[in-house]
């Protein structure tokens, strides 16, 4: 009786896609190793009952050489071997290396079913595998699947019950590799294929010179596309809805609203020249939805679309190679670019994915850098919306300051913290063109995640702010911090409200700056300060969970110091 099913395999062989196919639970998969940082669980209908399915992190062998591998192997040992089934997923295009884990699993007596995934890819590359023969050599069921299209998954499910432990003599390392060599020779046939355009592109993207040109091109085009798609959504969809549909509706409502008291202030906010101004009214029904849906959401959609595309094509590990040099100086290695890029969407998944980094030191540096120097999409969208009006010059300035800050901070942390920078060791996947359906699902999944996380906090946040403003409770904080805000940062003292709100949500905080009618330079300072000061509360909680209290306090102290210094410095340099 099977009580639990485990999915195990080398990194980046498509375990998460198979997992989604088996359980219907949507997990994010990407074309780079180490996407699965959290263990996902789901259920599969097998025979009469439901069986739990567990997606284990990628592992190369049964001898654990990294923390992710340790987790995978220890989870396998949780249940008696006769109560589980192990689905070992292999990359058909790389049989030799993948078989090491398979032999290890069979030798240890696990009931295994071998799943040769990416069969379509193997076909393209001229690799044919004799499944019947492999089955007779290994004495375990072998199936061929293509998880992305779903081919073979059904017959795999049917054969899960056939898994039984088989006895197989234990081999030492050398014997095992020899055995693998023998097996591969018997079952695999290779056809020589000429270099395709794809292989030429794969090669060009890792060469020092052409790679750098390609990287610049990819980053530039991605950036342009994110703006283009975002603006298109705003101009064609959200703005017309807000201004032609929603505003007349609200105005009709306010027309009949005789007494403009507490509730009016809460829901609609202030009228600007007798009219509702979505950017300045600051009501729960006016500014709150406009910030989230009219200014931020379009860019969240466009950013995640482009990021998901780059992820699934498999470009990011190549970018990691090119950036390894720079990141090494910051105490990280090239692979840290993945958490950083995810952090540009939202700092929360960015910091969660620092788990792909090996040491605690690296995770601390990466998390601190992300929370200080990497602005999330909501914040960026608002900065573009506000500061963009004064010219791209200022927006570029914010990015430049943040970039310099990341570099300086990284170099200092690397020097100051004990320990050393670990070395880069990464398998580079080949380019794959992602099926649009999968891309769409991933995008939907991420945008949904954003909405669930952001909308309640924004609505409650604006409500809360309005209550405080109505009863003039902010005045106390304003007056206490006035010397710092006015004297050091050169901002009007009311800007403290925005900085405090920044702890709740960054996009609302920038929204709070809108009615203050700041000059371009003041806005520049305020926006930069919001980016580098304390991260929002969601990020803060994740930092706490990932780093522990002691390191969180250390990180927070760095953040406060850096923002005070930077605010003062910017004020001194550009305002005076």
């Amino acid at each position, binding site marked *: 009786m099977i009580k639990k099913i485990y999915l195990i395999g080398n990194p980046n062989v498509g375990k998460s896609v198979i997992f989604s196919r088996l359980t219907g639970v949507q997990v994010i998969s990407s074309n780079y190793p180490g996407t699965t940082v959290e263990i996902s669980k789901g259920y599969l209908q097998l025979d009469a009952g439901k069986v739990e399915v567990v997606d284990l992190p990628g592992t*190369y*062998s049964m*001898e654990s*050489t*990294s923390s992710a591998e340790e987790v995978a192997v220890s989870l396998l040992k949780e249940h008696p071997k006769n109560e589980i089934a192990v689905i070992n997923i292999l990359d058909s*295009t*790389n*049989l*030799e*290396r993948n078989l*090491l884990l398979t032999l290890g699993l069979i030798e240890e007596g696990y009931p295994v079913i071998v799943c040769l995934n990416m069969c379509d890819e193997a076909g393209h590359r001229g690799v044919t595998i004799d499944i019947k023969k492999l089955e007779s050599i290994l004495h375990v069921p072998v199936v061929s699947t293509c998880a992305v299209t779903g081919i073979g998954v059904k017959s795999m499910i049917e054969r899960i019950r056939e898994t039984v432990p088989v006895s197989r003599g234990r081999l030492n*390392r050398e014997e095992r*590799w020899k055995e693998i060599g023998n097996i591969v020779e018997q079952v695999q046939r290779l056809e020589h294929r000429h270099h395709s355009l794809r292989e030429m592109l*794969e*090669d060009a993207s*890792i*060469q*020092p010179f052409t*790679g750098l040109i390609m990287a610049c091109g990819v980053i530039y085009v991605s950036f342009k596309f994110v703006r283009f798609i975002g603006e298109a959504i705003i101009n064609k969809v959200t703005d017309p809805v807000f201004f032609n549909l929603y505003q007349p509706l609200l105005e009709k409502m306010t027309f009949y609203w005789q007494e403009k008291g507490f509730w009016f202030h809460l829901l609609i906010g202030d009228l600007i020249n007798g009219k509702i101004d979505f950017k300045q009214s600051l009501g729960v029904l006016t500014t709150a939805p406009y910030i989230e849906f009219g200014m931020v959401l379009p860019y969240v959609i466009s950013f995640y679309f482009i990021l998901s595309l780059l992820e699934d094509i498999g470009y990011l*590990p190549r970018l*990691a*190679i*090119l950036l*390894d*040099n720079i990141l*090494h100086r910051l105490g990280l*290695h*090239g692979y840290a670019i993945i958490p950083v890029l995810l952090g540009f969407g939202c700092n929360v998944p960015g910091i969660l994915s620092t788990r792909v980094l090996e040491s605690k030191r690296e995770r601390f540096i990466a998390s601190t850098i992300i929370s200080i120097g990497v602005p999330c999409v909501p914040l960026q969208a608002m900065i573009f919306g506000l500061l963009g009006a004064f010219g791209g010059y200022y927006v570029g300035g914010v990015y430049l300051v943040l970039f310099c800050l990341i570099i300086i901070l990284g170099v200092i942390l690397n020097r100051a913290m004990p320990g050393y920078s670990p*070395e*880069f*060791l*990464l*398998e*580079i996947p*080949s380019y794959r063109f992602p099926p649009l359906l999968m891309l769409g699902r991933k995008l939907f999944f991420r945008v949904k995640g954003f909405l669930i996380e952001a909308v309640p906090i924004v609505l409650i946040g604006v409500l809360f702010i309005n209550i405080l403003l109505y009863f003039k409770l902010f005045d106390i904080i304003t007056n206490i911090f006035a010397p710092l805000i006015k004297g050091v940062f050169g901002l009007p003292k009311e800007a403290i409200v925005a900085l405090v709100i920044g702890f709740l949500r960054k996009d609302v905080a920038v929204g709070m700056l809108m009615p203050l009618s700041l000059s371009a330079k003041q806005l520049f300072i305020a926006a930069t300060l919001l980016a580098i000061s304390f991260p929002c509360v969601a990020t803060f909680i994740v930092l706490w969970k990932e780093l522990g209290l002691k390191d969180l306090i250390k990180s927070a102290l760095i953040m406060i110091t850096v923002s005070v210094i930077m605010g003062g410095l910017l004020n001194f340099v550009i305002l005076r």
Partner: protein
Amino acid sequence: MGGGEIIIAIKRGCVYNLFMKKMSLAQIKANSKGKITEILGGANLQSKLMNMGVRSGKEFTKLSHIGLEGPVVIKVGRSILALGHSIASKIIVEPE
């Protein structure tokens, strides 16, 4: 002169014999082929590399080397691997 060369070689993390044909993966030219003869370094690194298909006796192609002590990209078997510079200098190879 000879002494100087050896000191340079030691500094780069390759104590290996300069006068023989053996050199490290970090030293061999990009776009050349060879055979891995030995892996220096700790047991953990050795087994990690071995699990990824890098072991002595294996033939490889060095695809690229990013300058200024950047990573080395090789093709071993059917996989493409990127190795940090100091790992690459611990892999002793014999050029073809």
